[in-house]
């Protein structure tokens, strides 16, 4: 319960102790101090990992690590939680897309964090993967930035994770990201993507992906890092303005503020739909790309389709 003072609407201390609060959470309504916020975030991430069996003994986890706040929080959190699992190791993978004025700063931040946490760190660039950086690939097609970048980033991550011997790929997706994806897939009428879980039907072909922070809001993650002096003050990706996700994020964020629980309810709806829909029945069967042999749903995988359209 919140200890808010009705005279001013605020709270002088944490709901759980006498320390000053750093954040107000509304589900349930409570104020938390820095120590209780850190404990709360890490306990909920640990619960998500245990309940969904996201990590198993002897796993080698590749953390998709951009150096931004979500992946930094994930790396910090996993570094603290993993001693609870037997013989689990971490490797941080940073994908350098080649975005001028943006990625250099985040890569520097990523290097500092991995050094501080003593985590093995590898980088892979779009130039390594496809011969050009993203800025060059996008000349004249800037509005497709997020889709082109997403396809190549997934591929780069997968290549680097295989090379590093990873058994899982962990991404820093948070509650806001997950709710946005549900709404975007619904708006696009894409039932297949809506009901596809991250590791559905993928064990034979792909390294399974896990999202330990999927139950934690973006704001909690930012606060979790800020109180540990680890919040990365970085520029915004210059291509974000082209993304449909930005519109959805603004809309959902306003809804969440007005109606707390909106994002969680969206995800609950997705889970309810998942239970009643056979993923295989609404998706194309997995095949092999005739160009590169990677698993895909059409004749060509997305990367080879992209290569073809780019003349690569």
């Amino acid at each position, binding site marked *: 319960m919140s200890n808010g003072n009705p005279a*001013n609407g*605020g709270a002088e201390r944490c709901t759980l102790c006498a320390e000053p609060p750093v954040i107000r959470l509304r589900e349930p309504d409570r104020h938390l101090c820095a120590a209780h916020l850190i404990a709360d975030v890490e306990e909920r991430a640990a619960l998500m990992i245990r309940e969904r069996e996201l990590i198993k003994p002897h796993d080698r986890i590749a953390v998709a690590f951009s150096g931004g706040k979500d992946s930094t929080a994930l790396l910090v959190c996993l570094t603290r939680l993993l001693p609870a699992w037997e013989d689990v190791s971490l490797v941080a993978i940073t994908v350098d897309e080649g975005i001028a004025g943006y990625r250099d700063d985040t890569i520097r931040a990523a290097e500092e964090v991995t050094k501080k946490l003593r985590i093995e760190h590898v980088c892979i660039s779009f130039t390594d993967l496809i011969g050009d950086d993203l800025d060059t690939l996008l000349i004249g097609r800037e509005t497709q930035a997020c889709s082109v970048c997403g396809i190549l980033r997934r591929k780069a991550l997968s290549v680097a994770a295989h090379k590093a011997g990873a058994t899982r790929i962990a991404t820093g997706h948070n509650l*806001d990201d997950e709710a946005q994806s549900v709404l975007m897939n619904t708006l696009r009428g894409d039932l297949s993507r809506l009901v596809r879980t991250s590791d559905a039907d993928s064990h034979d072909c792909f390294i399974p992906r896990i999202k330990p922070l999927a139950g934690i809001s973006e704001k909690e993650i930012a606060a979790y890092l800020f109180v540990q002096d680890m919040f990365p003050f970085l520029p*915004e990706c210059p291509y974000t303005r082209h993304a449909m996700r930005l519109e959805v994020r603004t809309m959902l*964020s*306003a809804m969440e503020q007005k109606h707390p629980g909106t994002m969680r309810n969206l995800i609950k709806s997705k889970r309810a739909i998942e239970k009643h829909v056979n993923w295989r029945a609404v998706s194309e069967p997995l095949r092999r790309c005739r160009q590169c042999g990677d698993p895909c749903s059409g004749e060509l995988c997305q990367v080879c389709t992209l290569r073809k359209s780019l003349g690569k």
Partner: protein
Amino acid sequence: MKIILSYSTINIMQEDPVSITSILDKLTINPSDVIVSRNGKLVPEDTLISGDDEIRIIRIAHGG
């Protein structure tokens, strides 16, 4: 008091205590999109501020 946004600083003459929520409201900023520090320490938005407080409003979304 001084309000620091990402790329600008606003000085507000405010004698009486006011909540951060109402400042955000005036600046049309959704509290879900930011975290706020007072004199360098993170505080909830229902905190009252006044006098010489320095408030920093930090946008939290920037794309991975």
